[in-house]
């Protein structure tokens, strides 16, 4: 019988393929993008000379007025959609945390939107928002009558249209996370509060909210990362319009990289976006750690 593999060799055998894949599909593209961001490379002109432009692309991105408009649109989308999803998701989670008739049916029904593909959601909401035959306009007119209005063609309404659709789609996801948080609260805490004759508000403020807080921060973290790179839903729904009022950073990035083929410039933009989302995530994770330590 030959001697078997050592524990260390066996460990490398198992971990090796994963590390190789990680290097090939995550680390290498990141380093490659970083390198490209310092050049004038254009993917549609492979034969052209590639020149080192230093921080030129970064300077151009940061001084581009249009990019700051895209960042403002992204910030509006992020802050409004995440706030709404948290409020509604928490409300739904509190509701579903109480047992009632047809509880299972409603739990599943509420989850349906997040099971759909974002591009599909964007497409059918586009029809819902259609001013002449869309069901959304019909319902709004049924309850009040603002007359003909165009959710997607109006510069004031369209940023809210994308927030609304994203909230419709992803509130169930936030609800699911928060429901897990609510179910993890030990019942004896509420029993002790009952003995102390604590009011419902006190129980919520002193027990429920602090205990669920790590899950809330997790939900914020996940939605932050997801919505920062949101593309397909908004692309289908508004295509960045009208004008550029819903042109999120991700849509701008795609246009620069794969329509204008400014590969070096778009690589710099991608790195800046990466740093921004990394920074935001880091702050959120630190906050999460602090909450957990309390």
């Amino acid at each position, binding site marked *: 019988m030959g001697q078997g593999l050592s524990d260390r060799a066996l460990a490398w055998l198992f971990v090796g393929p994963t590390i190789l894949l990680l290097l090939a599909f995550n680390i290498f593209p990141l380093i490659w993008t970083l390198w490209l961001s310092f050049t004038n490379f254009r*993917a549609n002109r492979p034969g052209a000379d590639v020149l080192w432009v230093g921080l030129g692309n970064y300077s151009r991105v940061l001084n581009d007025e249009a990019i700051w408009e895209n960042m403002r649109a992204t910030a509006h989308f992020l802050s409004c959609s995440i706030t709404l999803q948290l409020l509604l998701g928490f409300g739904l989670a509190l509701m579903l945390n109480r047992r009632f008739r047809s509880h299972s049916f409603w739990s599943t029904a509420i989850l349906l939107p997040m099971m759909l593909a974002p591009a599909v959601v964007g497409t059918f909401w586009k029809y819902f928002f259609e001013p002449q035959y869309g069901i959304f306009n019909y319902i709004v007119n049924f309850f009040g009558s603002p007359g*003909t209005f*165009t959710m997607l*063609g109006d510069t004031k309404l369209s940023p809210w249209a994308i927030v609304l659709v994203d909230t419709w789609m992803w509130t169930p996801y936030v609800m699911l996370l928060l429901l897990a948080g609510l179910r993890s609260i030990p019942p004896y805490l509420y029993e002790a509060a009952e003995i102390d004759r604590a009011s419902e508000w006190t129980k919520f403020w002193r027990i429920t909210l602090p205990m669920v807080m790590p899950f809330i921060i997790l939900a914020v973290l996940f939605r932050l990362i997801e919505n920062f790179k949101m593309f397909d839903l908004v692309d289908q729904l508004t*295509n960045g*319009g*009208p*004008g*550029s009022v819903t042109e999120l950073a991700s849509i701008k990035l795609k246009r620069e990289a794969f329509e*204008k083929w400014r590969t070096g410039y778009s690589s710099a933009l991608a790195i800046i976006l990466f740093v921004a989302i990394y920074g935001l995530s880091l702050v959120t994770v630190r906050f999460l750690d602090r909450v957990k330590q309390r």
Partner: protein
Amino acid sequence: MKWLNTRSTFAAAMLAALGLASGAAQAQNKQLTLCWAAWDPANALVELSKDFTAQTGVQMKYEFVPWPNFAQRMLNELNSKGKLCDLLIGDSQWIGSAAAEGHYIKLNEFFDKNSIKMSDFMPATVEGYSTWPKGTQNYWALPAMGDAVAFTYRKDWFARPDLQAEFKAKYNRELAPPKTWDELKQIGQFFQNRTLDGKKVYGAAIYTERGSEGITMGVTNTMYAYGMEYQNPKKPYDMKGFINGPEAVAGLKFYKELFDCCTPPGHSNAYMTEDLDSYKSGQVAMQMNFIAFFPGIAKDPNVGGEKTGFFTMPKGKIAAAQLGGQGISVVKYSDKKDLALEYIKWFAQPSVQQKWWDAGGFSCHNAVLSKPGFEKSTSYAPVFLDSMKIVKDFWQEPSYAQLLLAMQKRTHDYVVAGKGTPQEALDGLLKDWTEVFKEDGKIKP
């Protein structure tokens, strides 16, 4: 014996397999893939190409991509040196980049060898679809599908005596296809929000799409008509005072007025399909669209036949229409270039070009266009001929995609989103385009 039988059976099976394999390989070699946009003319070409297969035994395979994704899909294919397409019917604006980057093969020698003369084709289409650099005789495509932007109108609505009388009382002229942009706007206003047969209707469906090329293909029509030039005709790439000059500003301002006064609600991201939908569903009195769609409209059960008429782009200071259409090219990365050239040789024949027109394609061949009776051959033939005499095209530079996207943004921001003034929009566009040409080394920094 049994052993012999087994061996014979095995040998026969091997031979059959080899035969099948070589047959399949031969069939593969005798097959061409043609790439184009997915629309009515493409279906007509499928029918027409059956004759080519019958004559040569070459099977035709097609890759048709919907218009909104066509440019990106095909340009990605070319940039990645893909072998998907042997033949490509590519948009006129791609010719600069396709020639400069070497994606298409140059056809001059082939044309000379096979006595294909570019003088046999309508000059505007040769200039628009085949040549690069412009003004030279370097040919990269054979004009395949002539096209321009024009209008359809509801002839039956225009003919109603009650509307005729009301219009005459209001504007002191007949309700007839407009000859000028001001007249078109008046007609649009006349129909806007009017109730006809119990249904609310609107003035005109025009191009306003943001994502690909829609609003540019629309707004350039009024900008050309008001006298806009992309650059100084005497000094290439000198754009100041031309693309942002008073004529261009007036044209852009007019297009916004048209958008504000006369389009259906929610018409803020409309291109070919959306305009067709608006028109075919009886929502609008007039529709801006490429002439390539007119055969389908003429046959439409709801609005076709006597209900629809066609007119060329109205005049401003000058008469001008945005060029559409495409030339057919051989992709350099194809392994079947000779076979692809055979197809072009077949397609260039006058008899095939006549069949192409009869099938619903828009031939650019003079033999077809100058044939007696051509103008009366269909209800839209005169509009096609007249439009092709006044066409102008967008930049066809290798950086056309960047130039186009900048125009899409600047004009959509102003026309649809109402941001700033037309002068600010075009000053911004001048800045964007100057940056692109500086990057290309065509303007010295």
